[in-house]
């Protein structure tokens, strides 16, 4: 190959192609030290590093520098002195937070809402996917898929506005002001979310169902299995790994429950149940300008979330033999 090409070949290419089927181009016949590999890669492929430079800078500036700025959770932040110059206060912000009676309410609101959401949003897409899988391809199937998928593309602002209009006592379909009742907040939040995402979430199960070997269904049919039996013994086991991952991921994201919707659905009347950690951070930090306290709350949230995710990844490994990421 090297001798027949008319182009001048950099020597690196020649010794890069070992005889044999190996396609790993950075492993030559002799394995070099990592440092030598790095140097060679840099010399030959410097343009790759050039390409990556701006995005890497982006991640450093907008993701890793903020992580470092979390030090102000342990300081009494003053904008004049900056994050590094401000005075250390140790764990005072956390002590204040944990001793504040609001904290337990916040934590409870966040966890209950998130767990409710995961549990309610879990079965419906599965039901939808299995039902769609049962019927023949045709206009009905396409219509159901299209329509149930559509709300996913509507913005949170619009979904919340729709919810408010639908539930408004004056023009809506109910006669009491449900949005003003703290007890209804979670139901409204969760079920409007199910309405919006069920069709989208069903897609992943549809793919899992499509991946099931049709021979299984054929032979079950010959053995006289009914549709329900085939769902129970073929379809459900077939999508089980996917379902486990989805559920576990949902639990792992408990603390990462979004700010956007809760904040929009909030009003003075339902605050007792609608105030969750992200909305509290926003109000404390940006409306009351208590940066240190807000950062402490946010940091607490991020750390708990990280541990949850690690725990959940461990669980996923035990259950499915595979981690969520490598």
């Amino acid at each position, binding site marked *: 190959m090297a001798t027949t090409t008319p182009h001048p070949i950099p020597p690196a290419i020649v010794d890069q192609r070992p005889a044999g089927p190996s396609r790993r181009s950075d492993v030559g016949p002799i394995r070099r030290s990592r440092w030598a590999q790095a140097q060679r890669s840099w010399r030959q492929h410097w343009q790759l590093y050039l390409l*990556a430079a701006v995005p890497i800078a982006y991640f450093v500036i907008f993701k890793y520098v903020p992580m470092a700025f979390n030090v102000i959770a342990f300081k009494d932040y003053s904008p004049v002195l900056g994050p590094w110059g401000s005075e250390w206060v140790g764990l005072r912000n956390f002590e204040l937070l944990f001793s504040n009676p609001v904290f337990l309410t916040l934590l409870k609101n966040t966890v209950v809402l998130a767990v409710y959401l995961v549990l309610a949003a879990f079965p419906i897409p599965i039901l939808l996917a299995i039902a769609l899988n049962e019927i023949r391809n045709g206009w009905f199937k396409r219509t159901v898929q299209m329509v149930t998928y559509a709300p996913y593309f509507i913005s949170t602002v619009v979904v919340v506005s729709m919810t408010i209009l639908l539930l408004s006592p004056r023009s809506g379909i109910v006669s009491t002001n449900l949005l003003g009742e703290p007890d209804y907040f979670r139901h409204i939040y969760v079920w409007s979310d199910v309405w919006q995402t069920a069709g989208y979430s069903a897609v992943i199960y549809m793919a899992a169902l499509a991946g099931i070997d049709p021979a299984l269904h054929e032979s079950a049919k010959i053995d006289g299995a009914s549709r329900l039996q085939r769902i129970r013994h073929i379809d459900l086991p077939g999508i089980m790994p996917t379902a486990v991952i989805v559920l576990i991921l949902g639990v792992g994201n408990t603390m990462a429950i979004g700010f956007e919707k809760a904040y929009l659905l909030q009003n003075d009347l339902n605050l007792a149940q609608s105030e969750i950690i992200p909305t509290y951070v926003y109000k404390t930090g940006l409306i009351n300008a208590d940066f240190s306290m807000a950062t402490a709350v946010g*940091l607490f949230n991020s750390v708990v979330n990280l541990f949850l995710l690690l725990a959940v990844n461990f669980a996923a490994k035990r259950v499915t033999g595979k981690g969520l990421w490598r």
Partner: protein
Amino acid sequence: MSLLLARPRPAKVREPLGDRIFLLVVKLMLTAMLLAVLAPLAFIVANSFSSAEAVNAGRVRFWPVEFSLHAYQVALTNSQVLQGYYNSLIYAVVGTLISVTLTVAIAYPLSRRTFFGRNVIMTLLIFTMLFSGGLIPTYMVVQNLGMLNTRWALLIPGAIGVWQVIIARTFFANSIPDELYEAAMLDGASEIRTLRSVVLPLSKPLLAVLALMYTIYQWNTYFDALVYLKDPDLFPLQIVLRNMLILNSTRPGAVDLAQQLEQMQLVSVLRYALIVVSSLPVLLIYPFIARHFTKGVMVGAVKG
């Protein structure tokens, strides 16, 4: 005659009674789900086409009462709404350009085996999905960069999604064969030239998916604008909608449009029309892009 022309049909096995009943139940359930999704949409659309009196009296359900286009006339001539539309278009177009460029710029090197340190970098990117710096520290960075209350605040801080990087990297790694890189290299193409002339022309489906994801995100999000923007002239449509629909207030200082509308009893119909007007662009193109979106979700599900 028709008997002669009849094609030999494969003997159709009639399904057992139990299965046919089951199928009927399934279809009924799907119809119920379909209606459950459609009903709120129909309610909004019906109200938006009704007269103000009918809406205020709560007489509208799923069909317009006293058909009227007045709400749309008002919505589409409102300066805040138009400004919001214009701003959102800018954010969607420019933001998508920036985001797709940056995503490809990091995903492509990460997909190449010759890129030393790619696993370390990938791990560091994924870590940002697990542990975020948090709202206030990110705000401080944006503040220090002088981006507060500028258009950049909506374009840059959220420019790259790690999920999108994973999708793009997986695509490059799986659908561009190594032989093409070797051929390009032998022809003396530089890495950037290879990307431009070999890889990108083969990656149109990926670029479409990324562009769609970022565009929809930019069109629908309001959080960054809420946090970083103060100047109403920069507000994207979603913030305008929030102010008009949820806070139920119009911009202070603007000619007291709100009062005017109140007199005309239009304020409530206006809300329904605004919902339709703001969601329409996305819902109109959605049937054509849903397929790509699904593909994107699936590509990301395969680990690279």
